[in-house]
């Protein structure tokens, strides 16, 4: 798909500052770190969750466990015939029962990913609480889902896409707002 960049939403420094703030918020609003665990939603939620955990360790000296969750099997909108569906593994080495989980993803949009992620988590056990942390909330919810920890909230139109690039995956670091070009 061809797109044209409209404006930059976050620079590399801004992403870093946002994550720092979010890490502190998470610990603050969780009453500490006991039973706290971060679940990165593939793909870009994973490096974000890992960075949050490192930051939290930095100021609290606590190792908050990080798991990764692949939601392909839980999506309600799988590909049409043209594309090859690909599933990757979910790696959550700790039990989810009775845990205080924070789902971490890059963008919150319709809420369907979050719903699929919750389905995935509940297949594994019964967490005590599930909250969500995202870098960008762009609105247009189609389900009653909210993120407790939000980096930036922006208004977008239907044709626009929030494009997140992270160094672990994309070899660059920024968040842009792009528009589809037909």
């Amino acid at each position, binding site marked *: *798909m*061809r*797109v*044209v*960049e409209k404006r930059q939403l976050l620079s590399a420094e801004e992403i870093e500052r946002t994550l720092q703030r979010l890490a502190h918020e998470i610990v603050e609003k969780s009453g500490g770190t006991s039973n706290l665990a971060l679940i990165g939603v*593939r*793909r*870009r939620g994973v490096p974000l969750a890992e960075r949050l955990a490192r930051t939290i360790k930095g100021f609290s000296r606590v190792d908050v466990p990080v798991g990764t969750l*692949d939601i392909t*099997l*839980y*999506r*309600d*909108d*799988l*590909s*049409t*015939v*043209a*594309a*090859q*569906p*690909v*599933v*990757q*593994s*979910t790696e959550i080495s700790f039990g989810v029962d009775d845990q205080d989980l924070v789902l971490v993803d*890059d*963008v*919150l*949009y*319709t809420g*369907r*990913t979050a719903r*699929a992620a919750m*389905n995935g988590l*509940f*297949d*594994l*056990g019964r967490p005590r609480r599930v909250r969500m942390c995202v870098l960008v909330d*762009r609105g247009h919810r189609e389900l009653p889902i909210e993120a407790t920890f939000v980096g930036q909230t922006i208004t977008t139109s239907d044709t626009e*896409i*929030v*494009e*997140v*690039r992270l160094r672990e*995956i*994309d070899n660059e670091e920024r968040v842009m707002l*792009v528009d589809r*070009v037909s």
Partner: protein
Amino acid sequence: MLTELANQGPAHIQVPQRLRHLLEVAPLTTEQISFILDQAKPFQEFQRHPLKKLATLRGKTIALAFFEPSTRTRISFATAAARLGADTMNLQAESSSLKKGESLMDTVWTLEAMRPDAIVIRHAASGAAHFVAQRVDIPVLNAGDGTHEHPTQALLDALTIRDRKGRLEDLNVTIIGDILHSRVARSNIHLLSKFGARFTLCGPPMWVPADLETLAPRVVRMSRIEQALEGADVVMSLRVQTERLHEPPFSADDYVRLYQLTPERLKKAKPDAAVLHPGPIIRGLEIDSTVADGPQSCILEQVSNGLAVRMTLLFQLVSGLGPDAPHPASGTVQ
């Protein structure tokens, strides 16, 4: 600034062309096979979840057309479908209208009229899966056609071997038994040869004819089991296919004396050789109980990998099909 959208999906994974059917392994590439085995890993893991139920294929129906009696493969496919959330239509040979003279295609068209999303077929005639795939409009999965191929068995065997031995490349594989009538043997020979395997075939001479050596580049026959097992990385033991014989069966005593896989004979293979059997095993006939239950035996892993591989294939062939599902690159899920 024009760019290509980066987050289109897991672009870091080499994704081969999507399969429409799975009829045989012979034409698959090593990339396609490796992709299927890699994709099976999440499904292997899934078998350990407390709640083994997904909604991925919810609303889809898989027709299980088993024209040959089969318990284990049918249950494996039925469970795979159910765990993916799909419904199944069950046709079983014993209660089949085929016995009343209905042709294969009429039976299949009857099933197709009930609009399943895929057909899994097992049939006694070689080429039956191809026959059906040429005449229906939905994906077809071959669960074993005559003596031709049993692709999901070879894939689950490959997954088992890869997990046990750490690789699929350049293995010495010995197959023992009635190879002439074995679709499992053929599929395994096709699949592993693509990764450079060397095959040694051993069994009663009338069931291990010279023409088998033409199946792949490095296939040889040996008459004595001890020689055949020398240096094997993988040993595959086959069931004596009594239902396929057109002539009087081989004497059980002779078979045990010449071809039974015993602990002593197994010592000729490499010490960490993996022992596989497609099941059901006949203890005391083709395989000694000590070997079947021993540390080198992969028989139970094969069963659980069978479930993972079949879930993978149903997922790959069936998920997202239909005019209503939106394209993943349309960016609605973020």
